[in-house]
């Protein structure tokens, strides 16, 4: 996969001397969906703003499609569509005018066919002559997306696209994002909904205090970091872990009614079979067993805390 964005040693210091991004490097591949996770104030929006031209760069460099975002800003911005975190629309403008305006700002000729297709895809077609003020919040967010896509960008930044959006619409949004990916658009999104990243991202980057803590293939990350729990309900209570079972990562819970066994699914062997046969050998009888998985959420919390 070829790389489409290359952020190198980026530092962003705001006028009040606050450093929001500290020496951050990140490569984004063409055609992928990358989700940036991080708590409030982590620097996600700041990172996006420097790539898109809303913020100046204190030091470091950003290349889009091999071109510097400052030197060749016309060419790089041409490739990029941005949906900012905040809804920002002129209330008394018609939907269609607002979208056409965005396209024209990019120096593109009007293309009614493309815009109408876009409106249909975002389920805005029958609202196109409404003034923006008359739309619901979710519709406004879709107008923002339509504006960002109006000039047919190859890269789309979505800064919290599903904040304050209901479940139904969120699923629609995911479908739209996946569809765009199928059309070859590279998508960078930030989110606070970890299941959202889990659902749609190819890679996940975690940012905190202006630093990129990790960026990894989603499945790889989950596999590497996931700890599974085997919960064993016992017929008789257990006061302490017998000598023979000390080598297993076990914990007595429920006042001795159950045992929890922790294992990593990334490992070759889970150790479940030998644990169960060892238990059988020393006469501990099972009542029931079940497994629990750690979610990306648990992983996220663990990484941020460390």
């Amino acid at each position, binding site marked *: 996969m070829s790389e489409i964005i290359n952020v190198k040693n980026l530092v962003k210091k705001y*006028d009040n001397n606050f450093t929001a991004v500290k020496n951050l490097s990140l490569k984004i591949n063409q055609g992928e969906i990358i989700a940036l996770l991080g708590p409030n104030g982590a620097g996600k929006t700041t990172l996006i703003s420097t790539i898109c031209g809303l913020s100046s760069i204190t030091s470091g460099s950003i290349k889009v499609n091999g071109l510097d975002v400052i030197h060749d800003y*016309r060419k790089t911005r041409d490739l990029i569509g941005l949906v900012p975190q905040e809804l920002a629309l002129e209330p008394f403008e018609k939907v269609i005018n607002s979208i056409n305006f965005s396209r024209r*700002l990019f120096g593109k000729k009007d293309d009614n066919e493309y815009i109408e297709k876009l409106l249909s895809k975002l389920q805005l077609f029958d609202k196109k002559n409404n003034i923006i003020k008359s739309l619901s919040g979710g519709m406004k967010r879709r107008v923002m997306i339509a504006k960002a896509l109006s000039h047919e960008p190859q890269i789309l930044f979505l800064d919290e696209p599903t904040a304050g959006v209901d479940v139904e619409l969120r699923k629609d949004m995911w479908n739209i994002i996946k569809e765009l990916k199928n059309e070859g658009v590279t998508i960078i999104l930030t989110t606070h909904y970890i299941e959202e990243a889990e659902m749609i991202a190819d890679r996940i980057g975690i940012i905190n205090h202006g630093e990129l803590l990790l960026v990894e293939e989603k499945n790889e990350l989950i596999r590497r970091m996931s700890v599974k729990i085997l919960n064993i309900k016992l017929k008789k209570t257990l006061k302490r872990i017998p000598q023979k079972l000390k080598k297993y990562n076990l914990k007595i819970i429920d006042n001795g009614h159950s045992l929890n066994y922790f294992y990593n699914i990334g490992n070759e062997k889970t150790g479940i079979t030998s644990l169960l046969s060892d238990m059988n050998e020393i006469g501990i009888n099972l009542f029931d067993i079940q497994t629990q998985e750690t979610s990306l959420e648990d992983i996220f919390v663990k990484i941020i805390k460390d």
Partner: protein
Amino acid sequence: MNFRGIHAIYRYEMNRSFRTLIQSLVSPVLSTILYFIVFGAAIGSRMDNISEVSYGAFIVPGLIMLTVQMQSVNNASFGIYFPKFIGTTYELLSAPLSFVEIVIGYVGAATTKAFSIGLIILSTSYLFVDLEIKYPFFMICFLFITCMTFSLLGFIIGIVSDNFEQLNIVPMLIITPLVFLGGSFYTIDMLPPFWQNFALLNPIVYLISGFRWSFFGVGDVPILTSVIFMLMFTSICISIIWYIFKTGYKIKN
């Protein structure tokens, strides 16, 4: 140059004023008519001619200047402040547009509006007074440059302002008094000597005088002084814009 982008901004701004036609066009024209009635017809009929020009005709250039100056500042400052206020500047900044192109779009639209209003007032004034313009070409150029310069000034005010109060304060506390005292309704030598010196510190005096010269061939100060003043004023505004551009002051974080 991203001409389509410039045109998009220009057209958008022009449409915005068509949507608010009453406010942007009818109201300045109406207030000028009121000035004509009060100063031209009612008071003017009792006034002596000034340098062989009837008082009603005398105030025409001043009224046009007064209106276009205030309109330019208001239109341009609001034009750029409003997107800042509602947050849509992100669109301008993330588009392949240079700062100069953004300025041309906004200032161009504000200039066009003010210039059209100026011409409309001029036409309206023919209903009230006999008017002959001595140097029409010069008049048009001078009017245009005034509109452009004050639009640049308005753009600067819009960029620098952080809230509506700041947006209003410069036009209200500085520009309006200077414009009103700039000799729209009188010549400087009608003032008591002490105030005459004071009046010469007011830059607007030179602009109104120059504009009036294009109508009647006479002004408070020599025409060359007016032209030099005008150009100085324009260059100062352009330099400030340039500084804003170079430093990214108040536009980029």
